[in-house]
Each structure stands twice: as structure tokens, then as C-alpha cells.
């Protein structure tokens, strides 16, 4: 057991922290108000190798492993507690990896060099109006073979980066049903690379979010959308499994970025309680302040460790073939279960230390509270879905509640 960082990891954390604290942190309020990530930040991220970093160098990526990708996620969360820049980062890191792994050569050549340069967006689109986590029940978007093309009809919703994809160009990895027979179970879906910009038959919609305002949330309806055959990503009818792979990656990065934002907020809070006085002494000297701080810090450190364990497990799988998809799913679900909820709790507590100021935009904490909530509400699965996965890995598939629902 060795908790130390390698030289490369240490230097990378410092570099990302330097960049993020200098270029992103001072502009978080602006990002939140203007509802966009400034172009210079996207370009800076591209220069450092922070856009889809898990993609190989042949497509302009840097071939980062998951530990390095996770370090960057933590540092970006630490700088942008509104957690908007981290959405851009982690969606592209996780789903760029899936596209790099399973996309067709032509499409990878077309999109990945632009994605890694910040000139195109790469997102994920699985959720539909009927639901998100229950893909089997909710994914009704159909893809049908029409000659040498695919034809799509349906609707995707609560999708990050719809505006960015329309503005910059790019693709969303979109899950569609390709096997009408309900008995096919999970082997009924296929992944496709769906460009939103300029694609005939796409009608976008937009939502006004509560937080993490710098990145858009929207949806799109598909009305007889046609794409060439090479837009299929991965194996036919194996899309569900490719999606699960991407979800585990994204969950790990979510864990790290929420830990980073929570740590940053706790830091802001600690400065405040040392400075602010009540009843003639700094409020940091009250047990009512200290004990929650100690508890939160302890939980945070535990969550941080479990998040890095998830990243390590992913590297064990993808670099050394010494872990399974089950190991990854379990480790990533635990990180994702804990980090966003704990992060919210930390921010909520720190808000109390600031008093009324925390309820105003004079104080950054409100951006954090609004932003981090999106990571537990949804964003690659709710806490209950994480619990379902964890229990499934502990008890086995045969105890999945969904099995009993089908039997009933």
C-alpha cells in the first residue's frame, strides 16, 4: 500500500492547479452569470491536454490514464465550484474514451482532433422523456437500417452540451433501440455518433438550469434523421454495455470533481471561521463549528480515497487487464454515491458559517450549492441507482429488484 504520487502525477496536479486557479477560478462568477465557458479557457484546456485527455495522441489526445484524468477532475472542481467546467471536462474525458475505443476510423479522424482542440463538443445522450437510469424501460428512440444508412426517430432530453454541440459542432454518443423484441433485454441497444449541428431532422430544446450555468442542458427530437452506417459506435446491440463502461468512467471523474469543489469550499469556510468573531472570539473556536468541520473533513478524505481507488481500479482494468468491469462498476458507484451528496452537505454547512452573506451572490458558496446538486440528482445516475449497482455487485444479479418486477 503506497499513498504517494508518482513524479508525473505530482507535476500534473501542480500544472492543472496552476492553470485552473489562475485562469478559471477568478472567472467562475462570470461563467455562472454569462452562462458560458469563455473561449480562452477552452483553448487553454486544449493546450494543456485537458480536453478528452484519455484519447490517444494519434487523434490529438494525450493518452492519459484514469489516475491522471481523475487528478485533473479534482483540480478543475477545486477551481470551479459551480462545477460547469468540470462537466465539459469529464463528459469529454469519459465519453471521448468510449468513442476512441469503439468509434469507426473515419469518424474518429473527423471528430477527435477537433474535440481535443476544443473546436468540437463530444457529449452523451441516453436519457429520454420517459426516464434515464432505467434504460430498458425508457430508451424508446429507434434506429432502423434504411439501405446503407441508419434512420432515427425519438427524443433525448436533459442532455449536457446541446448548445455547445450546435455552436461548435461535434457529436453526442446516443443510445437507440435497434432490437424491437422486448425479450432481447439489454442486448437491444446500439450507440451512435449523433452530430446535432446541421443534421436534418434534429429539433433542439433548451432548459434553464438551476446551477452549473456555464454548460447548457437541453434535448433534441429526432424526426427521420439519417446518418451513414459508420456512425454506429461499437458493436450492434451492445450499446447498453458500452454505455455502462462510459458511466463508470464518468462516475469516477464526478467523484473527484465533487471532492475538489467540496475541499475548496471547506477551505473558503475555514478562512471564514478563523476570521469571523461572535461573542468575543473567532467562531472557529466553537465546538458547534469544529465538530461538523472534523466530521466533514473525515468523510471527505474517505470519499477522496475511494474515488482514487476507483481510478486505480480503472487503470488496473485498462492498463493491466487485472480488474473486471464488475470491479470498476462497484468502485465507481461508491465514489459517485458519496461525493456529490457529501459535497452538497459540505457546501451547505459552510454556507451557515457565512451567515446571511452565503445566501447572496457576494459569496461563491451559492454557486457551489446550485451546481453540485446536479451531480447527485442525475449526471450518470442517481444515488439510488448507485446503491442498486453496489448491492448487485455484492449480492449478485439474481437479487436485482428489476428481475422481480419483471416476474410480477
Amino acid at each position, binding site marked *: 500500500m503506497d499513498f504517494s504520487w*508518482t*513524479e*508525473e502525477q505530482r*507535476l*500534473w496536479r*501542480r*500544472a492543472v492547479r*496552476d*492553470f485552473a486557479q489562475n485562469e478559471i477560478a477568478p472567472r467562475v462568477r462570470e461563467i455562472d452569470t454569462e452562462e458560458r465557458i469563455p473561449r480562452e479557457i477552452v483553448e*487553454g484546456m486544449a*493546450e*494543456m*491536454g*485537458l480536453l478528452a*485527455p484519455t484519447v490517444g*495522441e494519434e487523434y490529438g489526445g*494525450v493518452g*492519459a490514464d484514469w489516475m*491522471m484524468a481523475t487528478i485533473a477532475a479534482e483540480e478543475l472542481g477545486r477551481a470551479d465550484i459551480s462545477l460547469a467546467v468540470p462537466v465539459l471536462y469529464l463528459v469529454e474525458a469519459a465519453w471521448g474514451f468510449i468513442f476512441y475505443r469503439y468509434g469507426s476510423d473515419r469518424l474518429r479522424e473527423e471528430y477527435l482532433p477537433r474535440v481535443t482542440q476544443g473546436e468540437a463538443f463530444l457529449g452523451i445522450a441516453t436519457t429520454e422523456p420517459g426516464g434515464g437510469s432505467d434504460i430498458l424501460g425508457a430508451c424508446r428512440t429507434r434506429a432502423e437500417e434504411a439501405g446503407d444508412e441508419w434512420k432515427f426517430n425519438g427524443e433525448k432530453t436533459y442532455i449536457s452540451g446541446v448548445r455547445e454541440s450546435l455552436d461548435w459542432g461535434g457529436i453526442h454518443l446516443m443510445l437507440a433501440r435497434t432490437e424491437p423484441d422486448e425479450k432481447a433485454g439489454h442486448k437491444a441497444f446500439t450507440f451512435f455518433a449523433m452530430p446535432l449541428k446541421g443534421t436534418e431532422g434534429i429539433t433542439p430544446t433548451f432548459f434553464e438550469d438551476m446551477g452549473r450555468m456555464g454548460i447548457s442542458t437541453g434535448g433534441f427530437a429526432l424526426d427521420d434523421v439519417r446518418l451513414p452506417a459508420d456512425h454506429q459506435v461499437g458493436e450492434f446491440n451492445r450499446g447498453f454495455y458500452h454505455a455502462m463502461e462510459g458511466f463508470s468512467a464518468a462516475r469516477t471523474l464526478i467523484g473527484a470533481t465533487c471532492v475538489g469543489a467540496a475541499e475548496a469550499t471547506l477551505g473558503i469556510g475555514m478562512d471564514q471561521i478563523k476570521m469571523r468573531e461572535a461573542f468575543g472570539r473567532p467562531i472557529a473556536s466553537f465546538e458547534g463549528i469544529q465538530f461538523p468541520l472534523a466530521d466533514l473533513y473525515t468523510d471527505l478524505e474517505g470519499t477522496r480515497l475511494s474515488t482514487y481507488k476507483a481510478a486505480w481500479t480503472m487503470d488496473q482494468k485498462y492498463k493491466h487487464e487485472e480488474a473486471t468491469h464488475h470491479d470498476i462498476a462497484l468502485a465507481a458507484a461508491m465514489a459517485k454515491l458519496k461525493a456529490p451528496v457529501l459535497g452538497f452537505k459540505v457546501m451547505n454547512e459552510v454556507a451557515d458559517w457565512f451567515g446571511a452573506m452565503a445566501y447572496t451572490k457576494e459569496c461563491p458558496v451559492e454557486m457551489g450549492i446550485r451546481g453540485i446538486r446536479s451531480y447527485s440528482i442525475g449526471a450518470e445516475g442517481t444515488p439510488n441507482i448507485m446503491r442498486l449497482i453496489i448491492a448487485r455487485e455484492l449480492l449478485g444479479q439474481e437479487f436485482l429488484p428489476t428481475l422481480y418486477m419483471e416476474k410480477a
Partner: protein
Amino acid sequence: MHIVVCTKYTPDSEAKMSVDEAGNVSWGDSPLIINPWDEYSVEEALLLRDEYGGTVTVISMGPEEALEALKHAVAMGADEAIRIWDDACEGSDTLATSYVLAKAIEKMGDVDLVLCGKSAIDAQTWQTGVALATRLNYPSLMYTINIAALDPDGGSITVERLLEQGRQVVEAPLPAVVGTIKGINEPRYTSFIGIRKAAKMEYPLWTLEDADADPEKVGPSGSGVRWPEVFEPPVREGEAEIIEGETVEEEAEVLVEKLLAEKVI
């Protein structure tokens, strides 16, 4: 073209310095960084290399901690990095340090241009660059804010120096020592690819013998500066007054009256 950048490590600019009773200076557990002024030199060297071709070698005289500065420069894009150290170097002032750096540069032999930061943020002597140029008998182009022209084949360089009196344009033969200041460029952040290279690279260590340097001319015996006493500057005494008023205008008026009364304005 072979460009050499001299650099050193310093404590982070946010470090809290303290001096104990024995006169030992400490910066606590502050991280070590490349001297921020040297980042401009490294950046300028990389820009020149990319424009004119050649290689950039970064050198630093210092103990193992000096690797921090070298690694940062390599992560930015420098091609080679050499650390120079010997136990005898301990306690060197700028006179001795410039001697060691000059000997190393002479040993390399094929150097066209030497860059360094205008000073280091720790001791702030502003001397090493000038001393280095003097020892090498190269033109000393300190406070350079712009390299206006460079002709590696013709062997000349034209720089703009930012002096108290204004900007001075100087042309000099190569090789020369250029001391960079803030504003000459915007140093890049280290990238993932650069860091991967910096973490894996071997950093050759030159001893004084490797640099053909005389141990008598380094360390305390080669230094002119003596440190009879080191102490923390006394805390400045002063009074702070918070000006109060109903409106900002009222506060401003009170402030102006007080400044007038103190004959500040």
C-alpha cells in the same frame, strides 16, 4: 542555434519566510517552484527556438531541489537540462554562482545565446545575470522586454531594454546574455505531454570537475558576501483607522480632509 537558460528554484511566492534565533531562514513547507522570473526566459528561449531552430538547454546550480526548476522548464518544452552541484558549492553567493554557471557554459562550447530572469524572488540580488555576462565576456542585456531582431547567422541581436528613463534599443554581437523581465511574453502552462517527458527524462549532474571549475572559487571561499547576522525585520508599527460615513461621498470627503491634514496631498 543553442540557447542556454540559467534558472534556479525558489520557494513559492506565497511562502511565509521566517528566521530562527540562529539566523537560519526557513520557508516552512512551502512548495518549491521555478523562479517566476526565469519562466519568462524559458518561454522566450522556446519561442526563439521554434522560430530559428536549434535546442534549448536549461541549467541550474543547486542541490537536488534544483530539479524542480529544471523539470518545470522541460515540461514547458526545453530540450535538455543539466544540474550542476558539488558539496563545495554550498554557501555560494552570486559571485561564486556566476563563476560556476560561466564555467559550465564555456564547457558546452557551442552556446549562441544565454537567457536568465532579471532576478530571483528569494534573495533579489539582481546580480547573477550581469556577473555571468561579465565572466563570459558577453554583452549584458539586462531588463529586456523585447527581442526585436535576432540574426543567428550574422551573429547579432537587437533588444529593447526597459529602463527607468525609457526604452533603450541595443544591438549586440552574439553570444550575449539577455536578462528578461515581465511583459516580454506570457509563459505557457506546462502540458500533459511536457510533464510526461519531464517526469521520465534523465537529468545529468555535472560536478565542478565536469565544468572545469576550481573548487576554491565557489562556496564561501569564492564568495564576497559574508552574513554576520540574519534577523527578521522588525514589525512595522502603524495605526489603522476605518473611515466611517453615511454615504461613500461623505467617506471620501473625510478621507480627503485627513490626507490634506497629513500633507499627503
